[in-house]
């Protein structure tokens, strides 16, 4: 990979990290603009906030192979995927703040972040629910003779739900253009995956259905990039579905209020060492990129997200009447 490409991925990863850090601070009630002391403000982001801190390499590298018109489904941990697909961080932040100017007009929040204009069909509150949806979207593309593909992100825990098996089988039977991406952070809520998943996990399950897969170090953005390049090319060529199994780590707790204290501190320390941003920065330095250049990237990411926070804080609330809109259209009058 050339330096330019790696720098581009690094910029995106820093942007995701900055977004997650800012959202976390805002959920704790502080002002997230770096450098300012946290104030006693009420939480600006309410409710469950699932951060993808530590998992940035998978989102960035996979999505770097997607075109704007390609489609994407996500999990409850969808900020990274959404940003990587090209969504505007300010409109995302507005959604997290519950404002009318958010992507979902304040109706969905963090757990349902979506930007259909870039093909991001939605984060989901139900584990594994995105898998059949991605499969169906890919089916539609095939029926309609369109050239796009679908990327479907899901967690390691999701592989134990029926929709995983049903979706993969379906995609393989109809040779659908979908790349399944298991973002394996090795834990589901508070339960380690290896205690709950029989056999060799998702790759083996995909293999059993005749669906080729690759397993990669999900913290190594170059490795993910390379594996995804191969699989995406095969999917685009009409070879049918493929699966990427990217092993990474969830640096934060399951939700922002969860300190994640059920984890082995050594494991967390090792994960901090293997932080994908650290690895990428070290590689950039090795290849002659200056520390100053790296610092500039970090600063730029933070500045962009600080702006997103300002936009979100100033944004208007939805009208209460909006709660009754977009429920359904029957053509007849609506009686509440």
């Amino acid at each position, binding site marked *: 990979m050339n330096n330019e490409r790696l720098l581009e991925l690094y910029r995106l990863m820093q942007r995701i990290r900055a977004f997650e850090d800012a959202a976390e601070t805002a959920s704790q009630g502080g002002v997230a603009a770096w450098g300012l002391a946290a104030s006693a403000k009420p939480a600006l982001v*309410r409710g469950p906030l699932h951060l993808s801190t530590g998992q940035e390499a998978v989102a960035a590298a996979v999505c770097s192979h997607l075109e704007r018109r390609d489609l994407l489904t996500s999990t409850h941990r969808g900020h990274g995927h959404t940003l990587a697909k090209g969504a505007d961080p300010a409109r995302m932040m507005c959604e997290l703040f519950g404002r009318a100017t958010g992507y979902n007009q304040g109706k969905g929040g963090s757990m349902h972040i979506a930007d259909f204009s870039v093909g991001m069909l939605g984060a989901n509150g139900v584990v594994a629910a995105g898998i059949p949806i991605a499969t169906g979207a890919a089916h539609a593309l095939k029926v309609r003779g369109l050239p796009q593909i679908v990327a479907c992100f899901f967690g390691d825990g999701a592989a134990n739900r029926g929709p995983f098996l049903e979706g993969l089988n379906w995609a393989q039977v109809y040779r659908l253009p979908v790349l399944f991406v298991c973002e394996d952070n090795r834990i589901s809520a508070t*339960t380690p995956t290896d205690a709950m998943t029989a056999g060799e996990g998702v790759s083996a399950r995909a293999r059993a259905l005749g669906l080729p897969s690759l397993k990669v170090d999900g913290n190594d953005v170059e490795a993910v990039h390379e594996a995804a390049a191969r699989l995406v090319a095969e999917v685009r060529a009409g070879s049918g579905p493929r699966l990427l199994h990217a092993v990474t780590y969830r640096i934060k707790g399951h939700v922002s209020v969860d300190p994640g204290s059920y984890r082995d501190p050594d494991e967390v320390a090792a994960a901090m060492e293997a932080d994908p941003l650290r690895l990428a920065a070290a590689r950039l330095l090795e290849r002659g990129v200056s520390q100053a250049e790296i610092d500039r990237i970090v600063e730029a990411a933070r500045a962009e997200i600080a702006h997103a926070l300002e936009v979100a804080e100033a944004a208007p609330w939805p009208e209460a009447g909006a*709660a*009754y809109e977009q429920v359904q259209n029957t053509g007849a009058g609506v009686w509440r």
Partner: protein
Amino acid sequence: MSMMTYAQAACAALAEAMRADPAVVALGEDLGRGGVFGQYRGLAEEFGAARVIDTPISEANIMGAAVGMALAGLRPVVEMRVIDFALCAIDEIVNQAAKNRFMFGGQGRVPLVARMPIGIWSASAAQHSQSLEAWFAHMPGLVVVTPATPQDNHGLLKTALACGDPVVYMEHKELWGAQGEVDAAQNIPLGQASVLTEGSDLTIVTWSRGVAACRQALALPVLGGIHAELIDLRTLWPWDRATVFRSAAKTGRLLVVHEAVQVAGFGAEVAASAAQETGCRIRRLGAPRIPVGYSQVLENESRLAPEKIAAEVQALLAQPR
């Protein structure tokens, strides 16, 4: 008597049942860590992983396996985390658990308790905040329980565990931290409402989180001097028709209040039955037929606000008896 939260009361009741009967087991995601809301705290330590079973994220199989366990001699408590995820196991609860006893001519019994927390959980949006009790009340074969206080959560969970048929047990997410005195010896039968206040002006029937909302409404100055009979149904199937009819006949006016969507809600069942039986004046209050929104502004539209309840009370009192 001891002070407990709603979550601690359920935990204590389950521990008591597990001590008394080795056939009682619990299964679900993250139970070993005490459950999402701490309602299983300490149970894995006391009873071990064989009886407090941590499961994969496999709702259909959790529920289906519980049916199998029940048929094979255990008394499983199934955790669905929130009722929204129980929809991933709807065949298992509706077509399997609920039908088994009847369909096989009484050969099988399915004594399981499926815990499905209901209700708005602030800022959790449309897939984590539903109150779907009417769906389950509609299903022959299921018992439906909706405790509102720590005492009731203790007593009703024990009764549910002793019931030989599948029980859908709905705790409310905003009640987990509610404190109250619990008398561990108190037995609360299924199908017995509790009359919380006696009154002659009107009858209010509610359950779950609706109880606290109605109490707040009745304390509002605009309702000063009004004597309402407040009834907590506690179980929706079987429901205490006698208590409701007696009260509605006495006051001549019935208001049914629930957090669930009003359209086709369980309030309709109570209202229609009471109208038929007593000819009383009736109003209902539930949520509008909208998904629960994330933003506070939108979420509020789905909430049972005391002011909305008070307005219904006034509207009902304005009608001639």
